[in-house]
């Protein structure tokens, strides 16, 4: 299957995994991720994908099975969402610390309670510290393309870390749109089969997943940290070689839009970015120097890139689908920490919206810019509330 097809984000991602020739796939279904593994299981069944498909009894097992397979040198894939991701949380640190280059798709979904199957970013953002590379995509095409790029990033010798690619639940996973599916020849030209010295081998026995005492444990964590930072160094080269073959490019850790001279900048993640760009265009027509930045990678965090991109801004807002209860939005905490090292003082605003699948309207986005323009108080605010906040 190649050429322009009308498919969903989940299906697009499955096509990306097929093109990347994942050799072992283990997953447990959960809405809104299910379609990805359904499609992959069909591909394996129909012989389109030469892969071992493992049915497991839980997300915990799904990631551990993928880790075991990765330990033999195989290219592996798993996918999950929300509570499933939280259930496998323990395993996330094993995979990252053990430097297993697994690619996982996460369909971003609210975390219970209140129970909800709809989208927000609380599931993955709550796991930022687990040592994975975290990518957030904007549409189905980028999702497919990042499925392929993710393996190139994960398996890079200087990186060797797992990648979590996040797609907004339903808004990306279940929305059908035109997607250009590359040919296998293109994918093969970009991504070679996984070759590694770092695996279980009868002829050259190794120890894996070993203990490190207090003498060197911190050093191992520093090494892991540096490997994650290496993504920034490699992502642009990977993207350039991707563009040469596929004709599409995504840039680095962030995408700025009309930021060159922007006074007010709104930062966001994922599928809402297009709407924010529309609002920026409207405000520019009205004479407001607005701009937007889409964060593509939450880890490594694009601190330098954000400082550079906000060089002319007097105010920066973050529109995010999460809340770290008792403080503020996690994306805001990260952005604010980065911008505190900016050469000039920037007012920062935190707008929490789209929680539990709540719609974010164009008016909501305009209200974020309006708050920055009017220099309203910088307290955390929830936008788009349907009821009056009287508590």
């Amino acid at each position: 299957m190649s050429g322009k097809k009308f498919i969903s984000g989940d299906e697009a991602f499955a096509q990306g995994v097929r093109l990347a020739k994942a050799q072992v796939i283990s997953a447990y279904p959960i809405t809104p991720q299910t379609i990805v593994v359904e499609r992959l299981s069909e591909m394996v069944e129909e012989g389109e994908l030469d892969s071992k498909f493992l049915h497991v009894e839980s997300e915990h097992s799904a990631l551990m099975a993928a880790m075991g397979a990765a330990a033999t040198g195989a290219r592996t894939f798993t996918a999950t969402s929300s509570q499933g991701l939280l259930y496998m949380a323990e395993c996330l640190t094993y995979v990252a610390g053990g430097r297993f280059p697994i690619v996982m798709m996460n369909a971003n979904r609210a975390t219970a309670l209140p129970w909800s199957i709809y989208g927000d970013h609380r599931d993955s953002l709550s796991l930022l510290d687990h040592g994975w590379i975290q990518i957030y995509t904007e549409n189905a095409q980028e999702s497919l393309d990042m499925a392929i790029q993710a393996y190139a990033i994960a398996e890079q010798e200087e990186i060797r870390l797992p990648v979590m690619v996040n797609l907004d639940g339903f808004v990306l996973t279940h929305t059908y749109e035109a997607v250009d599916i590359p040919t296998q020849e293109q994918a093969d030209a970009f991504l070679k089969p996984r070759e590694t010295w770092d695996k279980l081998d009868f002829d050259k026995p190794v120890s894996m997943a070993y203990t490190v005492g207090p003498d060197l444990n911190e050093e191992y964590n520093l090494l892991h940290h540096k490997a994650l930072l290496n993504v920034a160094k490699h992502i642009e080269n990977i993207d350039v070689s991707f563009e040469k073959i596929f004709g599409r490019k995504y840039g680095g850790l962030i995408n700025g839009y009309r930021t060159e001279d922007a006074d007010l900048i709104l930062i966001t993640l994922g599928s809402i970015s297009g709407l924010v760009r529309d609002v920026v265009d409207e405000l520019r027509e009205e004479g407001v120097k607005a701009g937007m930045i889409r964060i593509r990678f939450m880890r490594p965090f694009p601190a330098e890139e954000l400082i550079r991109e906000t060089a002319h801004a007097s105010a920066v807002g973050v529109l995010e689908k999460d809340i770290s209860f008792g403080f503020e939005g996690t994306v805001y905490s990260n952005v604010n920490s980065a911008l505190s090292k900016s050469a000039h003082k920037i007012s920062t605003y935190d707008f929490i919206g789209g929680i539990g699948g709540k719609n974010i309207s164009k008016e909501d986005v305009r209200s974020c810019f309006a708050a920055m323009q009017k220099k309203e108080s910088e307290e955390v605010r929830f936008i788009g509330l349907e009821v009056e906040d009287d508590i």
Partner: protein
Amino acid sequence: MSRLTKEITWYGRGGQGAFTASRILGAAAMLAGYQSLAFPSFGPERRGAPIRAFTKISDKSITDRSIPKKSDHILVLDDSLYDPALADGLKEGGSIFVNTAKEVPKPDGVMVITGDISRLAEEILGRPIVNIGIIGLLLGELPEIGIQNIFVSIREYMPSKTVDKNIRLLETILSQKK
């Protein structure tokens, strides 16, 4: 390619194929050179429960992925779901298409087009599945898409055993409209 921005809302019941039809239309729009999105009213699914689906078509890239507050066209697959108040969800000059054998109450100043697609579907498909047939009512208001693109889309994205019959159903509806 002419300028075009359309938001279409489908009303149906789980199992009637409203979402499938929204995708067939979206894929046909893609084949006609337009940008398009198709998505269901997200959430738990149950056969027979009322659901909505949406198709957005534009000559520009579609950045607003949310459910349209107002639509250009509303298609109702099952007349038990029809209510003249649906017109509140229409844009100025919008229209409603209903699969029904009955006379339905029509809101003032709104074009409501009806057709007994169920009867034709029973004859041709052997089952009262009207999701593709009702596109025949809509196409008069959406000439940019082109019936050939609908056919290609049906062949590509529908189960093979339903393809020929659905195309025959559509052709029958279009010939009766003339």
